[in-house]
Structure formats: C-alpha cells, structure tokens
C-alpha cells in the first residue's frame, strides 16, 4: 500500500492508483473532462491539474499520475485554482456559449465546472473560431464542432470499448475538430453512448435534441426493460411523456453503456390508447367486480393456467403466484420475447426478468399443452394460439388490450415496464431496483394490487410483497440471487 497526503488528509491506496482515484476514494472531487472511469484517461483536457510536492512550475495531471509514497498533493492551492480558471477560460473562449439553446444545458460539466472552478469572466475580446456546427455523424448523432472541447472521449469510446474508429480528430491546433472517417456515417449499434459521455453539447441525440430542457423533466433511476442484461438507466420524462433512456453507470452490469436499441425502446411506452379501468365482457366495472368475475370463472383452479410476462417485476409475479396458490391454480408459466442479441451487452432474451420468473416458480410453456379450461394472461406476452384453442375464458391484465384483450372475458389495466416499481433479476442473477419513470394515474394501479386484492388481501401491501418475493426467489432461484443493487448516479 502507498501512503500519501491529499489536501492534508492521509490516504492509503494500492500501487498504481491515480491521484484522481485516490482523491475520489476519500471524497475529494477533482474536476476532469477527458478522464472517464470506463474509457480511462487521455491527459488532454488539463482540468485535473494538481500541485504535487509543492511544485507550482509544473502541475501534475491527477488522472494519469500514479500515487507515490509520501506524495503531498494539493487540489485547491492557489496555483491549482489559477490553473483551473485558466483551463476553463481557454475552453470557453471559442465555445459558443449558446447554453440557452443547447440541449446539454442543465447537465453540462462545462457549465457546472465554470460555475464552481471558472474565472466568472472572460478577457477574450477577439472573434471566436468558426467550425462546422451541424454535422450528422449518423441518423442518431449530431456534432457541433464549436461546442466541442476535444476531450476525445467519443473517439476513445469507439477505440477502446467498441474496437472501431468511425470518427477521429482532423486538422491541427485551434482548427482541430472531430470528423467522420472515410466509411461514412457511424453504424455502430452502441454509438449513442458517445452522446452521454460528451461533457458538452457537441454531440447531441437527434432523437432527443430540442425536445425539452432537462430541468423541467422528471427522472427515474431504473433498469432498461429491453433485455435480460438489465442495463441501469435513467428514464427522463416530461409531463407524462417519456423522452429518453440514458445509461447509468453500474460496473457489475453495463459499465456506463447501453445499446441503441434498448435506449430507443422507450418510445413504445408512450401509449396513445391504453386500458383504463377494469372490464368484464367489454363493459366497464369496478376492479372488485372484475375480481369477483375472475374468481367465479377460475372456480377450483383446475385446468386453468397463468401465463405471465417476464417484464413483470418479482413483486408482481409474487402477487400472481400468491393469487394462484390461493385459488388453486398450479400451472404457472412465463412468456418472454426474443430479439437478436450481440457480443456486447444486448442479449437474445428481450425481457428483463426471466430469471426472476423462474426463481418465483414460473416455468416455460410446456411443449405438450395440457387441456385448458381457462387462461390468465399477465402483462405483455405473446400467447401461442394453440393455448387459446379450447379455453372457455381468457382473463388478461395489460396496458394495451390488443385483439386478445378485446376478446377477453375479464380485462384489468396493467402497467408498462417503465411504470413499475419493484425488482428484476437479470441473466446473471443480479436483482436490481426498478422505479417508475411514468405515473399512469390512479385508474391504473400497480399490477400486484389487483392480485393481492383478488386473493383476499391477506398479503398486505408492497413491503410484505417484497418480503414474500425475497423468500420465494431465495428458495426457487436456479442460481444464487444477489441482493437488490443499484447503479450510480451519472457523474
């Protein structure tokens, strides 16, 4: 172990730890742009300069300088503060300062550091440099050369994370800019990550840009429902409309990344037409009446099966299982969806909680279908037509009714994955917190509430349900299920 002093605090770190990492480990923040925990450091922005052993002539870049035994590091000395002001002044002189129309405003480290570490004034009386302002790097990514501070996080993302080089730096000195390579628009299916890691508004999402100022938006720290990886995300919405998913760092799951398909999958959850209020045979009824009708149809539970979506949370599935056990249904099946995965994050299973469903005792629909009297469909699931051939009734809980819901004897409202609260267990057995990014309103309660009520209300509310889900998944999981974890808030 190496012992050093940072701002008069003694710090002990492993050999090879950088000063920036050592400082962070004791809660000392050193501002930085080119360093990113998942692509490392380039040493180009000079924002993280620190004073080492009193040397004010040459300051050290804390993002690359390894800690040395007995080092005395100052992160707020007069020389460091002057250098920080100097670097920010340099970064701002040719920056357009068009924060009022820039999508990055409000979540911009250039703004934030300027307020906290900057000079608060400019001595620049000259004309700003002119660079290309609206360069489409692809259908999804737009580049503004004047906003760019050339930290090269974007080029290094492709080189170091994706092993390709669709963009690079062209020209020299003050004329430097990021440019597309000879092969034309970026095709990488993870390209939109460069928008998130861009510390300024140089790279913007063509999907999100100009839609909303971020300070008016509501954010939920949740998990991508796109596949069983369970990339941690922040879902951003404005007045009931979901506007974006962005990845949230979780070194155990997705580092700082997510696939573009998962990112853009938010769109399907802005519903024009959804199930509101319970229905029996197409007539609006109270949830209690719908539950009574369902209990009547289910009877002793024989020859009735439950087919539940693997986008449902563990808590919802626990409520469904509790209901099934209460009424005597023994056939608990799960239905997932697939898409084509890749060799990075995106997995073939396009649902986030197959592992949770398995842990809670739900099994795949058997190849040899038993004769069924009734089928209860919970959530978004593709129902094999053979299952419907002979049934007397279908009951369904869903956000979107579809043909099956329209024909169902009992239809109750359900929530989309972005409206749920609970946990999902990802492909690796990691149980993760899911939080609602949208609130569909009082006429669409949480899915579990209906099943708990229909089972007689004996399970109580959400905390009891979580405990029950814990107990069942701990007993039933094929692989050890980790305790619920959560990613980090973006930095």
């Amino acid at each position, binding site marked *: 172990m190496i012992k050093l002093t940072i701002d008069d605090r003694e710090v002990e770190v492993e050999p090879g730890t950088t000063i920036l990492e050592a400082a962070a480990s004791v809660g000392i923040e050193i501002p930085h742009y080119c360093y990113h925990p998942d692509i490392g450091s380039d*040493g*180009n*922005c*000079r*924002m993280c*300069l620190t004073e080492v052993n009193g040397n004010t*002539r*040459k*300051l050290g*870049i804390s993002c*690359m*300088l*390894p800690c040395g035994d007995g080092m005395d590091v100052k992160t707020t000395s007069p020389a460091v503060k*002057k*250098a920080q*002001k*100097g*670097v920010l*002044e*340099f*970064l701002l*002189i*040719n920056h357009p300062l068009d924060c009022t129309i820039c999508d990055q405003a409000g979540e911009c480290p250039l703004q934030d550091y300027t307020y906290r570490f900057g000079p608060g004034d400019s*001595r*620049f009386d*000259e*004309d700003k*440099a002119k660079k290309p302002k609206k360069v489409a790097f692809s259908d999804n990514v737009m580049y503004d050369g004047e906003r760019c*501070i*050339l930290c090269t996080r974007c080029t290094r993302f492709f080189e170091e994370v994706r092993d390709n080089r669709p963009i*690079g*730096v062209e*020209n*020299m*000195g*003050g*004329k*430097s800019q990021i440019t597309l390579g000879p092969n034309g628009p970026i095709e990488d299916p993870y390209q939109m990550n460069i928008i998130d890691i861009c510390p300024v508004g140089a790279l913007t999402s063509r999907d999100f840009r100009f839609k909303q100022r971020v300070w008016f938006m509501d954010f939920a720290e949740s998990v991508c429902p796109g596949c069983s990886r369970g990339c941690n995300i922040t879902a951003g919405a404005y007045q009931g409309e979901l506007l974006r998913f962005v990845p949230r760092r979780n070194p155990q799951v997705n580092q700082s990344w997510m696939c573009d398909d998962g990112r853009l999958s938010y769109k399907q959850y802005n519903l024009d037409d959804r199930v509101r209020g319970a229905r029996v045979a197409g007539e609006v009824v109270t949830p209690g009446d719908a539950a009574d009708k369902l209990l009547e149809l289910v009877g002793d539970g024989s020859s009735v099966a439950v087919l539940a979506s693997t986008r449902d949370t563990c808590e919802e599935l626990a409520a469904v299982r509790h209901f099934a056990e209460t009424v005597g249904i023994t056939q608990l099946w799960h239905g997932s969806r697939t898409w084509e995965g890749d060799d990075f994050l995106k997995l073939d299973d396009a649902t986030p909680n197959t592992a949770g469903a398995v842990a809670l005792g739900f099994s795949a629909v058997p190849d040899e279908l038993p004769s069924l009297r009734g089928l209860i469909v919970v959530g978004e699931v593709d129902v094999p037509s053979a299952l419907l051939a002979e049934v007397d009734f279908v009951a369904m809980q869903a956000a979107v009714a579809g043909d099956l819901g329209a024909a169902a004897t009992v239809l109750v409202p359900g929530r989309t994955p972005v409206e749920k609260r609970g946990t999902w267990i990802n492909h690796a057995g990691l149980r993760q917190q899911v939080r609602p990014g949208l609130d569909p309103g009082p006429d669409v309660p949480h899915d579990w509430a209906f099943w708990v009520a229909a089972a007689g209300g004996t399970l109580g509310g959400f905390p009891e349900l979580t405990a029950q889900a814990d107990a069942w998944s701990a007993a039933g999981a094929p692989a050890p299920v980790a305790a619920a974890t959560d990613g980090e808030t973006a930095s």
Partner: protein
Amino acid sequence: MTLKHSKVLSARFDKENSQALAGYREDGGYETFLSVIKQKQPDEVIDIVKRSGLHGRGGAGFSTGTKWSFVPKQTDKPIYLCVNGDESEPGTFKDRQVLEFDPHQLLEGVGITCFAVRAKVCYVYLRVEFAKGIRAVQHAIDEAYAAGLFGQDIDGSGFSLDVHLHTGAGAYICGEETSLLNSIEGARPYPRNKPPFPAVEGLWGCPTVINNVETIANVPHILKHGAEWHAGLGHPEDPGSRLWCVSGHVAKPGWFELETGYPLQELIDGPCGGIRGGKQLKAIIPGGSSSKVLLPDEVRKVTMDTPGIRALGSSLGSAGIIVLDEDTDMVDACLNLMKFYAHESCGQCTPCREGTPWIVKILQRFMDGEGKASDLDLLLDLAENIEGRTVCALADGAMWPLTSIVIKFRHEFEAKIAANQPVGVA
C-alpha cells in the same frame, strides 16, 4: 575563452562525394563501430559516453549517457533506438548538414548507440522536407547493409542490427520525442503524457532511446578519441563541438562548428561579419526560436554554453541563433513566432490549442493599431496559464520568446498603443 573552430562533425563535409561509404571507410569510418561491438561491453560504452559529458543536441540538453542508462537492464521486450531528424525548430539547420554531407557518420553512431543500449532495431526519423537528406541517408543505409555493417551477426561479432528510415509529413510536433514515437507507430502524432518515460515504455510500449541526429553523430568520435578528449572540448560543464546555425540580420549567416563556451559577440562580429548593413543589434534569440530573447548587453557578456546562457535565463536549445537588427519590429517578430507555434500546436491539450491562437489574435491587434494597455499583462498571464500546464514542451517553448519579448521590449508595445488612431480619424 574565445572562438575555437573545430572540425569534428564537419570534418568530412567538404570532401568530394562525402556521403559515400567508400570515402568514409578510407577515412577510418566504421572501424570504431566494428571494434566496439567486438571488444567492448555495452555498459562500458555507456560509461564512456557519460564521462565524455555529451549532452543532447536536440534542445533539452540532457546527459546522453545518463539517458541511455535509464533503459532497463532486465527486460523481455525489444529495445529500440529512434534518431530524431525531424529538425524543424525555426533557425535550426544543423542536423540537415550531417544528413546531407556525412550520413555514414550518423549511421556509425547509430550502430554504436544500439550496441550500447542493447537495441536491435533503429528508426531514423526524418522530416519529409529533407528530400536530399532522405536520399543520402537511405543510400547510406543500403550501402551499410550491402557491406555487412548492418544486418545479422555483423562481421562475426554476434551483434545484429536493423536500421529503418521513416519520414514524417512535416509537422513540427513530430520532433517532440513521444510524438515521433506515435508517428512511427502510425498514430496521430500527439505527444504522450509522461510518466511513463520512453526509456521504460516507448515505441510500441517497449524501452526506447530517442536521440537527436547531431548527438548520435558525436558518438563515433567519442568512442574513437575517448571520453577525456570530448570532455576537454569547450566548456568543462557542457563540453563538445557543436554545429551552430546563425540566421537573420548578419552579413554572413550560416552554420559554424565551434567548441562550446565561446563569446556570442565574437561569433557575430567575426565569422558572421557583423550585423547586416552596418546596423545595430537589437536582439538575439539564441537557441532556436523556443528560447528567451537576449538584449545587446546580454549578448556582449554571454558565453555559449549551458551555464553561461542559463545565467541569463535563456537556453542553448538547438543552437539556432536568430539575430535581429535595430530595424526589427519586435511586436511583429513576436507575432511571426507565435503564428508558427499556433499553426504547429498539435491541438491535443487545452492551454496550447486554445491559448496560442488567442495570443496571435492579440498580437495581430497590435499590428492593426488596436492594441490595449491591458493586453500586455494579459499576454503575460496567459503565458502563466500555458507554461508548465501542457502535455509537452511545445507550449513552454512558445511562451519563452513571448514573455521575454513582452518584458524586454514592453516599450515597443506601448509605443504602438500610443500611436493607435481613434476609430474614424484618418
């Protein structure tokens, strides 16, 4: 001390066909190399070069033997030698003479240096504008291979060496040693952050020694005549014979081989024929453009050796002496230099990329009659925010002439401000 003309590096420059291997060998060329690789141990060679007092001729002036000794003795990786012939410092044209007129002198130095640092491969990196030098060096390499002086098991010694010529594309930054490495690797020539230093992690991540052309050209002479011989040339603390390049307002500009430690004034007044047209001297930038300017009073007392020039706060750099006469507009000269640095800034790190063009814009305003009193302190403060804050020394080298000109010739800037015409008045 006085001017001591010497003929070490330039001894053969005047010979007919001085580039050819045959003539070089007639003059005893490669005998030192062949005896070294057969009779000496690598560490002996390093020790001799250390004791010779040879310092790098590229600009930084670091002890050559000490630099060599930083290469790890125990390593599984190949060790490389890179010869820096990207000579692009304004006012500097010394390596060019060696490349064009005596390339085998350089290549013999390459052989001895590779033996000393245990390198099996050398890259000679030349700027692409040196068309004649490139042809001469490539021809010399081909001759050396054909004569069995390079290649496998050289002359039965068991020592093997491959030498490659690599050309840059004309960027000043490629002369920065780690940019040079990136350029050889095919990457964008951005300087690397240090540590790690090239001696430990250089070309392709392997231990690498990078030396200037003139430095390497000295090596055969030191091994031939001995450490003590070299240590006795010129100034005892900074010994040797150097090729000095004089440009600017002198009657006879050119290169001169002189031992270190001579009075600068004597070089100007003597071999250079004084200031052109009988004018008065205004200033000298003594070490390539990246050094602090000297006033006539300082020129009169300075001796050209590291201790002598450091006492005046400047540096010998690449020994490119730029002479400016009384008619020189120092603001314009400063603008000219800063345009060079802004143009050649690689753009990697913030202070240099953004700062050098800003400085150009400010200086341009002075030339346009729009300089302001506050600009002078601004220029000095910007220099403080640039020097020592960047990845490499390009920006430091840009700030030295800037700050020294602003400080020493502040009156010329102030005179321009005083002469500014209010807008709208003819």
